[in-house]
């Protein structure tokens, strides 16, 4: 057990934990965050995605001790129900979900990709979602919402 400091969504947390613990379990179990979720534990589905150093990363295969001082952003860190982030608003407007379990990985992966390349083409957006799985197959609406957000940023 060691004490680890984590900066998550603008707040500093100190947690007592085994340093080899996957970041995901600390976020969900210790900090009670609902965004990042366990889907496979093998970085195959994207459910556990967080943004770290501007990149969408898989928190299920990353030990909490490897995070360091960089800030972690989770889905709830983007916006709030009263003031959703524009990408969240685009998903709300398009009704781009069924069960919604995958959204954490979908929204954060798309956001990180568009932050890096604001004028990404549909093809590039799709590539950024290559490792993200939605088994309800809400693809049509998801891609429409991301396009809408991307276009609104350009404007």
């Amino acid at each position, binding site marked *: 057990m060691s004490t680890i400091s984590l900066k998550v969504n603008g707040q500093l947390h100190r947690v007592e934990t085994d340093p080899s613990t996957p970041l995901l379990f600390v976020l969900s179990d210790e900090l009670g965050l609902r965004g990042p979720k366990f889907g496979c534990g093998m970085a*195959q589905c994207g459910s556990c995605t967080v943004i770290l150093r501007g990149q969408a990363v898989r928190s299920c295969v990353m030990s909490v001790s490897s995070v360091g001082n960089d800030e972690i952003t989770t889905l709830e860190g983007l916006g709030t129900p009263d003031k959703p982030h524009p990408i969240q608003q685009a998903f709300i407007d398009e*009704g781009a979900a069924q069960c919604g379990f995958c959204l954490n990985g979908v929204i954060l992966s798309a956001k990180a990709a568009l932050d890096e390349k604001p004028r990404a083409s549909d093809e590039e957006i799709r590539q950024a979602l290559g490792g993200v799985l939605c088994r309800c197959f809400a693809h049509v609406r*998801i*891609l429409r919402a991301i396009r809408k957000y991307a276009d609104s940023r350009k404007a």
Partner: protein
Amino acid sequence: MSVSRRDFLKTSGALVVSFSATSLLGSYAMGQGPFDTHRSHIDPAQLDSWLAVSADGTVTAFSGKCDFGQGMLTVQTQLVAEELCVHLHTVKIVQCDTAVCPDQGTTSGSQSTPTNFNLRNLAQAAATARETLVGMAAKQLNESANQLTVADGIITGKSGHRVTYAQLIGSKRFNVPLNAVAKRRSPDRWTVLGKPVPSLDRVALMTGQFEFVHNVHVPGMVHGRVVRPPEVGATLSSVDENSVRGIPGFVKVVVRKNFVGVVAEKQWQAVQAARQLKVDWGPSRELSPQASFYETMRKQPSEDSLLVDSKDVEDQLSRASTVMRATYAYPYQMHGSVGTSCAVADVKGDRATIWSATQSVYPTRSIVAKILALPVDHVRVIYVRGSGCYGLNGADTVSLDAALLSHAVGRPVRVQLSRQDEMAWENFGAACVIEQRAGIDQSGAIVAWACENWQTSRGGRPGYDQPGNIITGTLLGYDPETTTPHAATPPKEQVRNRSNAVPSYFAGCVGDQCAGAGIIRSERVLTHEVDSPFFTGPLRSPLRLQNTFAHECFMDEIAAQIKADPVSLRLKHLRDERVIDVVKAAAKVAEWENRPSPKPGIPRSGITNGRGISCVAYEGDNGYAALVAEVAVDLTSGQVHAKKFVVAIDAGPVSNPDGLRNQTEGGILQGMSRALGERVTWDSRKVTSFDWQTYNSLYLDLAAPKIDVVIVDRMNVPALGAGETAITLVAAALGNAIFDATGVRLREAPFTAERVRTGLHAPASQEKAS
């Protein structure tokens, strides 16, 4: 149960009701309800079981049908608001909590809309409440009921005097039975139902605030993981608890017969303990080789049913000018929920509470009571949404896992399955083999058609008393339901086409009752249920999808054989207007070109395009749809790309068109993933498709095809299901489109690039129905 509806209402919001919870709960202790219930303490015949109006006018409705992401929460809220004439935001639905909701069995099979939106249950409760309140207002205002108007929970008399629902009934019981003839709001006057109301969970989902069962935290909660056998049928020899004692936070190893689980303070510790625990397992069962499995299925003893038999099929076939024969095969497939299944259980003394994503809270309550030997009414199961399940995924089994572990340690335990445990042991969608024979006369009419279907089965939904139907129950020593081989008896009852084993083109005559959607009178459908080496269970459109694949592809083969246009041949053999209408609607919007398949002038290389159609009367009478698929096939790689789908759907009066579209779009793409790539694989001892590298699902990078959803809205008919209608059609429409594009008929799903390539290189004669 210690939790009363009053407590529940108190704690779940500002709503406080003053009726005696005890009297409400006690009134139906031993009743056998109309929902296939065993015991429910909540009498579905009483209005108060479904609905309460608080002093502030808030309406709380209690439903036994819950939302897995298909929008049932939203449409049920719309339903209550519409029938009760109140604003949408004053209605709160409590879903599937055995302490407070009526037992409506299982939320499945596209049955929630038919169950709750027609002339009974939730809809009739809301209508009864409105009529009761109007009657009360008439007395109070001293006016006749038919002169009163109702809007937003306010009843206004001709005199202009008004009284609110809250003033009339606020926090009091109605004490009236459900009125089966309470007048329903006419669909042509709907103001809330029928509208594309945005799903109510949307904002919470998109902002990471939504509570899934995975997010349930109970004070004092610890974490469990299970250790499943490494191979099918292996039994436990020994467990070495010392192998994990040193793990920090270790709480306990739990062993019961062949069930093994570990509990630790933290999730990571539980994961490590499950990985490190030394377990010796005995010998496993040898599995039938996958390569010859479909042949093996057909040779097994089987439980046979004859759904329809005109007894003249062989005679008609012998006289037909052309006889066609083809055999189709469909693999085991998985629910493959993106989140592995999770549940939290709190078992203390002789009472248990389970937070579960089960589709069946009451049956799960009975099963938990059975395996823990607790009185049924000491168990409470609370539904909390999980990852989309699409049928019987691991939600039930993990609920039992959590219950067992919590029972063993006396603390609340959260269990989430590993990806491997989820995928290797779930109740797969059944593998099927379907053999078709048809005779055609000189004029191009189908004169006789016989289907013979082999379907695998082991276990299934546990129901109220079959824990062995899922893996945890089997490990505890309960037996799964298996088949009882026997020959078929002649059909006696009218055809009920629940599994779509009967093609839409059959007249479906038993005696003088003809319940089929078509006109073919010389008809025979024989099904064989055979034992499965793996657990099976309902997976979105169970058997309906497999059967429809075989029927609708075979219809296409017949059309090709006689060089008929596939739409025209269908219309010529259909009788049911609702199927005819969706076929016409889809063909029209898709700008269907009237010609036979395959298309003329198929290129020898490069990309070739094609189109295909399929249609279904889902479950015979629970939704109608037709689908046109347009594909591009790469003749070098064999890769199939769906370019466009047009689906016409008739689900009766539509409660929420946006919800229906969302469901239909998802169903089509899920059907495409299943048709093009998904199949369970195994070696001689175990399932080998146990993660997303070994089980082939489409990801979000797919170039999604355009999907046109054409809603054929019918107002004055019962509301039907829509959850599974579209997916039922996809494999057939794609198979037919691939044939149109290439001339290659694929009779085994999935249509992998390799199979397309093999077909392209095979001698042409093999591709024709023999």
